């Protein structure tokens, strides 16, 4: 039964290759996208922390995104 499942009655190569190509490509794109997002989040956080208190308050007042990223970084720490 297991060997039937693997060979798929002679179509195993095509079926497994199709599923394999799809899942490997999707995994590569997922990890690449996640890595880029983390990189941008870190860089943004670094720039926020480098601001003076006055500049930081202004940035936080004007940007919900900055507020959110700063809040999540505190949670993470």
């Amino acid at each position, binding site marked *: 039964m297991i060997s039937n*499942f693997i060979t*798929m*009655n*002679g*179509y*195993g190569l*095509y*079926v497994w*290759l*199709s*599923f394999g*190509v*799809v899942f490997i*490509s*999707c995994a590569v*794109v*997922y990890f690449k*996208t*996640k890595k*880029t*997002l983390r990189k*941008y*989040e870190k*860089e*943004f956080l670094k*720039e*926020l922390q480098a*601001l003076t208190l006055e*500049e930081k308050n*202004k*940035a936080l007042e*004007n*940007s*919900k*995104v*900055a507020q*959110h*990223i700063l809040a*999540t970084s505190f949670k993470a720490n």
Partner: protein
Amino acid sequence: MFKFFSSSNIYPLIQKLIKFINSIFFLILTIGLTFALILSPPDYLQGEAVRIMYVHVPSAWIGLASFSVITLLSILNFIFKIKNFYFISKSIAPIGLLFTCLAIVTGSLWGQPTWGTWWAWDARLTSMFALMFFYIFYILTFKFLNGEELIIKVSSIIAIIGSINLPIIKYSVEWWTTLHQPASIKITGSNSIHLEMMFPLMVMLLVFLLYAALIFLMKYKTEIIRIKKKNIKRS
């Protein structure tokens, strides 16, 4: 109404959506794979090779749907000048390209055992190949052109010209004699696919849609941070 689409309003929702998708994704993937690879029956003509359908068809649908959304957003951007639509389109394009390429590759892997050839320059395959190039040109505008206004203009023109190809892809199997079979699933009219195969196909479509949504949200989030980063530097 369009204020709702501002990045500041959408941003807090993105993280919640990413978490939600992550929490249900593997469960639905497991159900989809179990049905697609084990529980669904083999086809009376194609045998087990029909299982390739469960990755090929959703990939092709998402490839087409992504380009339709990009075209629609490009037209809306031309009319209403909402920059956010451009960032959404930019985030969707790589997903569309990925799924179009996957549809071509898995189609080729399906073609060999069923048609006896990896590739044929028939109308459906050639028009999908053309769609892949429209995606590539669209994405290249972001990489190689300078100036946001110019990028928006050129990418929108590519999307609108590329949209001519969409009905050609859809109706190619009816307009011309092709190796590719006609559509088995129709929005209007009766489907020629049995429920035992339709159910795994729909579950796999849901898996692919969730994955596409996840990648879109992460890419869109990256775009928002990139813009905010620029704004911080300016102020």
